[in-house]
């Protein structure tokens, strides 16, 4: 039963990924569709980052993560390289947690 669930889930997830790459170009080039498609990854990734920063299961929590993400954003505003942004976020969260 578990193996069936693993294989069905994997097949379904793969077909969804492939379907995205197979969407006809002409369809994507319609003006309204093109504008929605251009904004979609921005919306999904912004929502993902927000959920990762604030959610624990179905609760919203303010904890050391937020301090880390905020420090990363400050580094970003100071035009720090990507690697620095990520390390500042990780280091701040780990430090706040160790002190708390």
């Amino acid at each position, binding site marked *: 039963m578990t193996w069936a*669930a693993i294989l069905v889930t*994997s097949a379904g997830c793969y077909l969804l990924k492939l379907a995205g*790459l*197979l969407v006809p170009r002409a369809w994507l080039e319609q003006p309204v569709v093109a504008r929605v498609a251009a904004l979609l*990854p*921005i919306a999904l*990734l912004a929502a993902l980052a927000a959920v990762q920063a604030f959610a624990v299961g179905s609760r919203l929590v303010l904890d050391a993560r937020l301090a880390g993400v905020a420090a990363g954003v400050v580094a970003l505003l100071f035009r720090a390289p990507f*690697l620095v942004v990520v390390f500042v976020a990780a280091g701040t969260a780990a430090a706040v947690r160790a002190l708390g």
Partner: protein
Amino acid sequence: MTETWQEVSGSVLRTALVVGVATGTYGLSFGALATSSGLTVTQACALSVLTFTGGSQFALIGVIAAGGNVASGSASAILLGARNLLYGARLAAPLQLTGWRRLVGAHVVIDESTAVALAAEDRGDRAARLGFWATGLAVFALWNLATLIGAIAGTAIGDPRDYGLDAAVPAAFIALVAPRLRTLPAWLTAAAAAAVALAVVPAVPSGVPVLLAALVPVFAVLVFKERAQ
């Protein structure tokens, strides 16, 4: 001042590696949780190799752990994978994949490869393609290695949170999306999508808030279209 391809590719590869390490390490958590949910080590590894999309994997083992209906667990796990379809539709043009490359590339259409590809796109489609493949392969290798270690060692290996990775991953996504936020519609879309997702977190299962945020660009385009007329 124009960057050479060597500079561009070096920068894109470093980003891919950092993203691969930060998110791949979460495979430790997945592997440990999968085996404590009743999966064998082989089953945990099979999920990471074959399904390879974290949100869906965690959703499925959550249902199995709770003793829920496995068929509906599969259905909701697949539903959560729908965001990869939306990523694929956006990536199809810059990636220009055909034949076997499209069949292989589809498997690594995930949050991380999309984010790095789009951040690199300003430096050309070639940089976007490198970002997509490098990130997809880095996350695939490290996520699967970490799943195996987590599944065998359980919770004995520390928690990714001890190293602040729970802050590093969202910070990485923010940094990768930031270059796309130069226009007002893009900025408002990102802010509204984050707000919508957080607002529904208490009301819907994990993974669904991000999917619901996909409605924001649909409304945004309709509203800005009205205003433009």
